[in-house]
């Protein structure tokens, strides 16, 4: 077997030299063979995703080398990296990352257009991939019309668009029910066994290692051990005790952080990824830490605005002044409205029968801010009812966009899809801390719509 990926003494820090420095990857020195099905396995925060970002050239590491087919990608120019990411690797994301305004067919065809394939040819090829993933009848549908499992299959089809030899899957089963997760696992296995592609998965769930041939165990940014075996036997030999230990560590971490702060961290990450789309990983990480500081009231809104406006080299994020102002106002809105939602929850807690429509009306204007259309009285009534039902947990997070988008004669609110999506995102952000019991997780839903 030939080595397709060789990682030599890689060290990666976020915010190196700053008080918030994170040593995300420590002296990583491993090889992955061509045709392997490998997994990076470990608890949250162990550096698994950073490893994928280093392999795919998304994160630039400060020390070491990542060799793909004997060529060091740390020396590639941005143009070369962009082409490598389009042709050399296909990435399957936990949050699917489909473009909401494009049909399934166009989502799959998109990476082909980036490398100069004509739109006619791209759609012909996309159709073949969609068929392979059993999604023919959904070709003209939009991502929001599909279940999580179907969206993830679109994500796999898109990852295959330019026929890359390496498939990288970042917690691909994280948002799926068990049936959908099983289907996705079957496809990953097929891409490895039938196509001969090298598949690399990041996961913290032991059961998803079923078909994996090599496991890299990770902890605190380091690979602590490597287990290689023939197909299937690795997962079965995976010590139950070890998995339990890892699970306990996960829980312990959660307790150490405190449940509230953990959720805040999550929403800070969601916000950072949303508001700073297109920025570098370093900028996003730093922004995230400032959002957390603001959530914790360690800094006020003025300090927050100054920090995100300040040049990156001086410890800021380097946002333009106007963007910094807009982002600050957006964040303050969330903080403010979270208090309103807390108040609403306290009302429900005391008397679940009590109407909360008056209180919902109080957050309506913030939710629809920026909406250019005018809501009719009927739409306002429906809107308030939907928000009220969502707060009470009667409507799951993943149905909100659909109901807001549905026409009024079908008992929806009749908003455009884009407006429905933006409003749903804002709503989930202010609910983030308060309804951890709801299913699915609101923050996940927000990320899905990005």
């Amino acid at each position: 077997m030939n080595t397709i990926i060789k990682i030599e003494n890689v060290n990666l820090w976020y915010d190196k030299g700053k008080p918030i420095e994170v040593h995300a990857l420590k002296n990583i020195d491993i090889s992955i063979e061509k045709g392997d099905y490998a997994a990076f396995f470990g608890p949250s925060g162990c550096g698994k995703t950073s490893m994928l970002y280093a392999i795919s050239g998304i994160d630039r590491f400060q020390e070491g080398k990542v060799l793909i087919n004997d060529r060091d990608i740390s020396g590639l120019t941005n143009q070369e990296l962009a082409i490598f990411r389009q042709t050399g690797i296909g990435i399957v994301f936990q949050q699917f990352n489909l473009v909401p305004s494009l049909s399934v067919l166009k989502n799959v065809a998109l990476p082909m257009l980036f490398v100069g394939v004509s739109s006619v040819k791209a759609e012909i090829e996309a159709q073949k991939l969609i068929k392979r993933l059993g999604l023919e009848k959904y070709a003209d549908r939009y991502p929001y019309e599909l279940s999580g499992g179907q969206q993830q299959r679109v994500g796999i089809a898109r990852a295959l668009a330019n026929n890359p030899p390496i498939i990288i899957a970042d917690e691909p089963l994280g948002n799926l029910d068990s049936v959908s997760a099983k289907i996705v696992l079957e496809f990953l296995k097929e891409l490895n066994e039938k196509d001969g592609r090298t598949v690399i998965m990041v996961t913290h769930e032991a059961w998803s290692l079923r078909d994996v041939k090599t496991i890299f165990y990770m902890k605190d940014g380091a690979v602590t051990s490597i287990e290689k075996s023939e197909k299937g036997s690795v997962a079965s030999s995976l010590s139950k005790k070890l998995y339990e230990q890892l699970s306990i560590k996960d829980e312990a971490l959660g307790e150490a952080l405190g449940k509230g702060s953990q959720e805040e961290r999550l929403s800070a990450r969601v916000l950072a990824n949303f508001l700073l789309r297109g920025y570098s990983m370093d900028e996003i990480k730093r922004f995230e830490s400032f959002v957390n500081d603001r959530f914790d009231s360690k800094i006020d809104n003025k300090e927050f605005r100054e920090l995100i406006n300040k040049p990156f080299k001086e410890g800021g994020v380097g946002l333009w002044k106007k963007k910094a102002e807009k982002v600050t106002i957006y964040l303050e809105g969330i903080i403010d409205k979270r208090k309103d939602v807390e108040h609403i929850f306290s009302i429900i807690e005391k008397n679940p029968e009590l109407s909360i429509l008056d209180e919902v009306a109080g957050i309506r204007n913030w939710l629809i801010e920026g909406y250019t259309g005018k809501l009719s009285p009927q739409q306002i009534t429906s809107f308030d009812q939907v928000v009220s039902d969502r707060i009470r947990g009667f409507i799951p997070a993943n149905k909100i966009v659909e109901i807001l988008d549905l026409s009024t004669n079908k008992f929806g609110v009749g908003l455009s899809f884009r407006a429905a999506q933006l409003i749903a995102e804002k709503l989930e952000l202010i609910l983030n801390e308060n309804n951890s019991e709801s299913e699915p997780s609101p923050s996940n839903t927000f990320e899905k719509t990005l």
Partner: protein
Amino acid sequence: MNVAQHKKIKILLIDSDDMVRIYFRDIFWVHGRSDTYEITMASSIEEAEKKIIDKETKPDTIFLDVMMTSPGGRSGNDEQIKKNLSFVERIKKDKDMSSIKIIIFSNKKEESIKEEASKLGADGFLVKGELMPKDIIDFTDKIHEHNN
């Protein structure tokens, strides 16, 4: 499967678009074919000619964008195409060079150009927009089958 075990097959891509040059070269790398093919690139006919006359860099096969612009020129105009096609003729008429395969690799798919290129001795005609990345490797393997 390696087309040649010992000596790499030398491919020269002539294209004025730097993204296309990187893309073409790196497809062979990402698919692990750097042990079979050595890809060199030129952004103009003039630059290519220097590589062709040098023994060290003389290619086995040339992929030529017939729509390519020369410095100061306009892409795809007739004069430009004619100039690029005359390069094909020059190579094919030179007894030291005529064994070099020339593949027209561009976005132009008019039959007249294809016919003209063929008459001048071009060995193949590929339309960029109709090729998936891996198709370029498969085509290259096919035209070098006899080297196996």
